[in-house]
Structures are given as C-alpha cells and as structure tokens.
C-alpha cells in the first residue's frame, strides 16, 4: 500500500505481531490435525507429542461409517445459498439504513440488532413451528431459510457502515444522469460496497458452515445431514474416541478453510479489479 520506507523498529514490530497472529491462529488447527493421527491414550497422556506413526485408519473408518461426501455437498449447498440470500437481502436493508432517513429508523435498526442477543433456545420452538408449517422439515430449503435469518445483525452492522462511507455525491451525480433508485443502488453503490459484502459474506458463510443445533433439529434424514451434525455423533462422553472425533473435525475444518481461501482470493481480485475506491 505504501511505498515509503518504514523504520526498522516498526517493521520488526509489525512482523512480530504478524507472527504472533499466525501462531495463535494455527496452533489449534495444527493440534487437531496432529491429534487425529494419535491413539486415544496418546492424546490424553501426552497431548503435545507428535504421533508415533502416521495411519489414516481413523479417516478411513470415519469415511466408511458415514457418507461424508453427501454431508459435504449438503453443507456446501446450504451454507452457500443461505449466505448469498442473506447478503442480498441485508445489503438492500443496509443500503437503506446507511443512506436514507425514515420514520422509526433507529428503533427498527435496534430491533434488527437485538436479534444478536435473542438466546438460541428461545428461538428453537418458534423456528421449528414455522419450518413445520411451511412443510420444510427435513429439507435443505428449511435450513437455508433459517440460516439466512441468523446473520441479520452482523450483516446489517457491517453493511450499514459500508454504505454510509460511500460518498453521496456519487448518488446525486447519478440522479442528474437520470438514474432511478434501483440503478443507483445496483450500479453505483453495490460495486463500491463489494469488500463490505465480501466481509459479511465470509463471516456468515463460516458461521453457517459450523452451525450444529438447527441442522440437527430441523433435519433427520441422511440425505439432508450436514457436516457439523456428523461431528456431533463423535462427541459422545462415555465412548470418547478423540482420534475419530479429530479426524471428523479435520474433515470439516479443512474444506471450510479451503473454500474460504478460494472465495477470498476471488473476492479480493474482483475488488481490486473494479479499482474504484470511494
């Protein structure tokens, strides 16, 4: 970003922070992956030692016992679709909250953000009722709808700020050119909000990718099962099997990270290529 040379001290400090960030972020995942190759007694007895031998038996077993490919496909479809829907509808609302005034705006915004604080158990029963009434129990569509509702507060927070920081002169110029409301939103504001859309999209996607409770409650059949539900099966207190649990966990985390990195790369490229900044 900056061509000027920075002082050595600043560079050192910056690299130290970056290194620290990498360590605290990768340590847990590395530990999980390494542990998935160890026996239960080794995990519990000497948790930071390296595995004595590399065996993919746990992976093979987990993979043959459960249809991870189906779950992976389901997770991908559900998390992606719900994220796209969520980002779209909250972008519409975020645009209004960021750029327009109307009666009751603040109250409405607070109401929307309260959703962050409504405890999960209180939502379980009403959501279950709605999904049943819409005849969407045990369908991917049901989960997509519910997930789209989750990110409301987070997405609105991010997108409101994003749209707020897009200068109004651009809108006014567009009005003079005779552009309508939709055109101003779609062709002027949305392209400039790309990175905000991407940020909220990524955060929502990862949250959906990991969601466990509703996936469990709202689906029953194997055909609609997602990865975190499968992980739930390995989290049994009395028959603890950490090797399998970590193998299953690895199979959930790694695709999540890969998808995220791919999307991130795409998004950054498109943000960079659009080239317009404020």
């Amino acid at each position: 970003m900056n061509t000027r040379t920075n002082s050595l001290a600043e560079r050192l400090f910056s690299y130290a922070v970056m290194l620290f960030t990498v360590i605290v972020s990768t340590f847990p995942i590395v530990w999980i992956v390494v542990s998935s190759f160890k026996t239960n007694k080794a995990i519990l007895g000497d948790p930071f030692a390296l595995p004595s031998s590399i065996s993919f038996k746990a992976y093979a077993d987990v993979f043959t016992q459960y249809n991870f490919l189906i779950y992976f496909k389901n997770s991908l479809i559900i998390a992606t679709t719900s994220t796209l829907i969520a980002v779209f509808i909250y972008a519409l609302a975020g645009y209004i909250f960021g750029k327009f005034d109307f009666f009751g705006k603040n109250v409405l915004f607070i109401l929307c953000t309260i959703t962050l604080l409504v405890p999960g158990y209180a939502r379980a029963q009403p959501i279950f009722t709605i999904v049943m009434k819409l005849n969407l129990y045990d369908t991917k569509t049901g989960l997509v709808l519910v997930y789209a509702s989750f990110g409301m507060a987070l997405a609105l927070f991010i997108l409101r700020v994003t749209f707020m920081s897009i200068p109004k002169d651009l809108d006014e110029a567009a009005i003079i050119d005779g552009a309508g409301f939709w055109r101003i939103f779609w062709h002027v504001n949305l392209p400039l909000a790309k990175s905000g859309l991407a940020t909220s999209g990524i955060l929502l996607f990862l949250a959906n990718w990991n969601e466990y409770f509703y996936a469990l409650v709202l689906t029953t059949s194997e055909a609609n099962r997602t990865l975190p539900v499968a992980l739930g099966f390995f989290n049994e207190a009395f028959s603890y099997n950490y090797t399998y649990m970590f193998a299953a966990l690895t199979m959930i985390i790694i695709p999540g990270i890969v998808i995220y990195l791919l999307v991130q790369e795409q998004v950054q490229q498109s943000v960079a290529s659009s080239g317009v900044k404020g």
Partner: protein
Amino acid sequence: MKDKGTKWWIAIFLAPTLLVLGLFYIVPIITVFTTGFTDWDGFGSPAFNGLDNYVNLITYDNTFFVAIRNLFFWSLIAATLHVGFGTLVAFILYKGYFGWRFVRGVFMIPMVISAAAWAMIYKIIFNDDIGVINNLVRQLGFSGFHVKWFFESPASFWAVTFTWLFYAVYVTLIVYNDLMAIPKEIHEAALLDGAGEWQITRYINLPLVKNAIGTGIILSVTARIAGFEEVALTSGGGPGNETYNITLMLYDGLVNYEYGYANAAATVMIILGVSVMLLINRVFKMNEKVY
C-alpha cells in the same frame, strides 16, 4: 430527493429483512419479554408471577453480582485489548508487508473450529500437568509454578479471557475494509503537506475508521454478553461461581425447567446489550458520516 417513489423503494428494500424479522424473531422476542414475568416450565402454560423471577435472579445470592462484575471486566477487555489487537492487525495488514495475505487468511481459521473442540484445546493448553503454558513458565525458571488455571480463584477469570482475547479477526476484517475505502487523494494531499507515516496513521486513518472500530466494539461486547460456550465448556462458571456470566444463569434456569427465570435473565441480557449498542453509537457518533 425524497419523493413518494423513494418511499416505496425504501419499503421494498426493507421488506425482505422485515419479513425475516417477523418470521424468525418477533415471536421469540415477545416470548422472552413476556414470560420473564411468569412461572413457566417451557411446555405447560405460563402463570403470571410478577417480578418473582427478577427478584430471584438478582437478589437470591451473589451470583448475579458476580456475573455483572465479570461481564463488566470482560466487556472492558473486549472493547480495549481485544478490539485493539484486531485493529492493530488490520493496520499492519494495510501496510502490505510481505506475507500479509497469508496472515489474513490464517487469522480466519479459528472461526471454523467448533466451540467444543476449542474448549478442549484450551483446557489442555492451560492444564497444569501437561499444558504448554505452565511447562513454559516452569522452563523459564519458576519451577514451583502450578496454577490450576480454570479451577483456581483469580486465574480462572484470565484463563477464560484467553480463550477469546486474540481471536478478533472480524474486527480486523471490518477495519481493514474501511481502510481500503479511504480515498487515495486524502493520503496524497497529506503527503504533500509533509505529513509523516505515523501522522497519517494517527490523524487520518484512525479517525476515518472509527465507525468500523465502533462496530467492532459493539460486536465484541455483545459477544461477551451473549457468550456461553467459552465459559460453560471450560471453567463451567467455577470454581464456585467465580466465572459466572448471565448466560450461565440463564442456562441454570433451563436445566431446572424454569423458563420464566431463564427468560428474565435473557431480558436482562438484551437490555444490557442494547444499552451497550446505544452507548457506543453515541460515543463514536456512529450515525454521522466520516467524509
């Protein structure tokens, strides 16, 4: 520019969000607020009991006081150190040092790890016997160091804090996002005026991303207010009730089929959260445009 057409558009743009709000949130919100005043087991019919749940929640023993005290300090730490760290990383990423993309990618990884696994990892890290922290400290010469992190009085607060302290990637992303949106001309003008690197960061970039920082604070503090797993799965609120927070009190209600009590706790939680949002909004003047 606000004519009748615009009003319609505003309504249309808000409609899907309102629909989601109505379908998925209004009923729970109303249930929480109203049944907080009832004796309700979660499946039978609720019976009005006035402020009983609130009295029980707040005055029965010192747990509520402890929970609020913890919440206060955790919120403070979240708003300062946690958000501060996230912001710092964003500013460093913005400089574009070698490997910044990698750091940004890697920072996101903890978001994909489930809470149960997370708690287990941290319990092992802080384990006295085999954990890295204590062994490291003992290696450094303090051979008598045997703090039982999650299970001893002042330590457990900090052990719980460490499970989330450095994981501020969402703050980093939001702030970074805002940094990227700063028009180049502003920097060029400042450079022409002879401003140095530090001055640009301090007097131009920082104020321009205040909305992002404010958002980060709101998100991180509400995460502390509504946070459950990071405590429940590590210290369990203990030793005693040392690391309790409101959600654990709420959970006690659920375990005992006291949904009225739980919802009273939830109401307190929502009110606290909204107050924090309003306060931050005011302090950071977040409704005002920055440019």
